[in-house]
């Protein structure tokens, strides 16, 4: 077993991807390429799963075969038989921070990645400072009955809880990629917060270091019980490689009465990745669900976090940022379903397109019958940095009841020559001025991020912007 690290040097200068890196790991077990019943059964077997999960997977595979590819969004050219669907990472590599090549450390510094995350990314699994910190947090949480494990572990250790909710918010038949994930999923986070428990600090995926939580087909399930609250932060802003070009996750969140959940994701994918993610939450009476979603990179991202407001007083908020550059298409948006009276929704979407990149906002607001006094507001702003880049807006609004308030504002702007001139007349270089304008544009969202992520986000934008002008 050996682990080596290579720096990808073939990327274009000036793009974020010059900082890409990946870890080559030799797997203990690697299913052969391709997708069929045998592979799916094998995955289930390797994981020692109960019968019901094995059946769930196999049924999902049939659904996957039956479902057609989405006919909207972006162009998807994936050869499903040319993918490894399961790769069990080697356990306990024992790499230390000292083993990590200087070049990579420098890159992390450049990106301003938090120390804990750096180590995680570099595959440091021993001497992990945060593990100590997290260890005591974990104890604290455990005392209160909070469960925070990877989903594979959850299936083994909390089978009843998992079985009760798994696949109920996003059934395999929801869409082709949800079906695929349901058949071959691996890793992801499972969180259960008992009634009344309010977790004050954000739970971060990278603390959960032994898990396979950055897989291609991760599966996350969060249950926030009555009156409880949690903020979950996932992903990281360093470019991520998966061994294959498809990332297809499913995230299900259940917010019971009076509870609150915020789910923050910042993802920056390498240019070859199809990132096709289904994220959906249900919010019951007076519960609040917030999605904060930042998407950078990838070849194509299709992601529309959804909140179904099922009972009176439920709130759903979705904040999303997309940044697309050369060869990238971000088809991102949001979906809000008002299924009860006095429900409140908000969508704020910001997209930036640069250097030939393409960003689309695709959003659906649906107010079901019997949802009087529902209120919803949608704001989507697009910023286009040069004439080669593109932005589109596809807002769908379906209102099936009366006495509802739905607002929609959309704006598309180009970085104005006048704004640039204004800043430059105060001594800012053209590059500094554009970066400042872009950072200002996404400020309303960055303000919502935990501090270290906000800093990272700004740096990332700066790296994306570097060398783009002049």
């Amino acid at each position, binding site marked *: 077993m050996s682990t080596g690290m290579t720096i990808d040097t073939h990327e274009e200068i000036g793009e974020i991807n010059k900082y890409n890196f990946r870890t080559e790991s030799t797997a203990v077990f690697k299913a052969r390429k391709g997708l069929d019943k045998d592979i799916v059964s094998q995955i289930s077997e390797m994981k020692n799963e109960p019968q019901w999960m094995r059946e769930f997977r196999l049924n999902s595979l049939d659904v996957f075969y039956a479902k057609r590819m989405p006919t909207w969004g972006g162009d998807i050219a994936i050869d499903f038989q040319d993918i490894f669907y399961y790769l069990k990472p080697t356990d306990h590599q024992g790499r230390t921070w000292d083993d990590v090549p200087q070049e990579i450390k420098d890159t992390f510094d450049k990106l301003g990645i938090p120390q804990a995350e750096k180590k995680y990314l570099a595959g440091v699994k021993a001497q992990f400072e945060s593990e100590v910190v997290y260890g005591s947090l974990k104890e604290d949480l455990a005392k209160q009955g909070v469960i925070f494990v990877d989903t594979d572990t959850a299936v083994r250790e909390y089978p009843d809880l998992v079985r009760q909710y798994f696949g109920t918010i996003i059934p395999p038949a929801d869409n082709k990629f949800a079906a695929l994930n349901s058949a071959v999923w691996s890793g992801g986070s499972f969180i259960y917060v008992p009634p009344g428990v309010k977790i004050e600090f954000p739970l971060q995926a990278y603390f959960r270091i032994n898990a396979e939580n950055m897989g291609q087909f991760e599966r996350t399930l969060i249950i926030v019980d009555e009156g409880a609250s949690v903020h979950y932060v996932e992903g990281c802003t360093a470019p991520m490689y998966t061994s294959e070009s498809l990332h297809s996750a499913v995230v299900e969140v259940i917010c019971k009465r009076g509870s609150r959940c915020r789910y923050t994701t910042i993802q920056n994918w390498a240019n070859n990745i199809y990132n096709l993610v289904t994220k959906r939450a249900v919010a019951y009476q007076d519960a609040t669900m917030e999605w904060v979603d930042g998407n950078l990179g990838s070849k194509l991202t299709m992601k529309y976090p959804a909140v179904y407001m099922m009972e009176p007083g439920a709130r759903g908020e979705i904040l999303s940022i997309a940044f697309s550059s050369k060869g990238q298409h971000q088809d991102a948006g949001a979906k809000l379903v008002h299924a009860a009276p006095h429900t409140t929704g908000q969508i704020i979407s910001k997209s930036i397109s640069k250097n030939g990149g393409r960003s689309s906002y695709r959003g659906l607001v649906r107010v079901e019958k019997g949802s009087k006094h529902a209120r919803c507001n949608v704001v989507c702003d697009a910023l286009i940095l040069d004439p080669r880049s593109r932005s589109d807006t596809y807002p769908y609004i379906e209102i099936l009841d009366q006495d509802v308030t739905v607002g929609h504002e959309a704006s598309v702007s180009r970085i*104005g*020559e*006048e*704004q640039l*001139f*204004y*800043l*430059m*007349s*105060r*001594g*800012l*270089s*053209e*590059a*500094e*001025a554009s970066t*400042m*304008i872009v*950072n*200002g*544009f*996404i*400020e*309303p969202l960055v303000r919502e991020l935990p501090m270290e992520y906000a800093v990272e986000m700004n740096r990332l934008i700066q790296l994306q912007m570097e060398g783009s002008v002049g």
Partner: protein
Amino acid sequence: MIHTLTITNLHVSVESKKILHGVNLEMKYGQTHALMGPNGSGKSTLGLVIMGHPGYVVTEGSITLDGDDLLELEPDQRARRGIFIAFQRPMTIPGVKMADFLRHATTNVRRPDRKEGEELIAMRDFRKELKSKMEQLKMDPEFARRYVNDGFSGGEMKRAEILQLAMLQPKFAILDETDSGLDADAVRLASESIAEFGRDKMGLLIITHHDKLLEHNRPDFTHVMLGGRIVETGGAELAKELHANGYDRIRKAHPDADAANRRMLQDDVAAELATA
């Protein structure tokens, strides 16, 4: 050395429209010049061209600072050399806090050789200086946390421009109608603070229609622009006369320039009709 800004036979066009037809003007550090003239005569254009606005093409003539050609420099380089304009219509930059913007700007202007990404001036010193200058301008400290010109009233915008002048301490500053849209008290405050921060500490080119702004900034020279040229230059008394009597005498004395001015305005109307 006494710094000198020299504009020689400046001709400027936008698209194919000629706006300035041979402007000559020399300013020395410490002097105050008033620039007056009817609407559409080219005053703002002159200011924007000195600053380096990319929308204007200089077809002939030169602008030099202490003998160095300014025309070949980008606006940020000109700012770092000590040129400043308080805009007639400042731009809004949503999401960018005044304080962040000003710290960047102040750093670059004070350290003209700073490269992108290099350190900014120390936060503490900067804050202290900003705070005291804002107090002098009777600005709420909250102002520093607001987004650049976002939701500012007309008066706040003009005050913010003066604040920038105070922070950047240029060698030459153009003030383009920094008094327009302000009430009497606000104009007095603007006049006082320009005197406080700018008078004798830089060369001032004050573009105005009134004499209030000049109250505390008595001009050493007054220039009158008409039809894209400076047609008369006098002292402080010329500004008073124009404010009292308007431009009729000037128009009669310079019928060619007057005709050019009217033509430009007619073009504007025609252009507006065409796009309407």
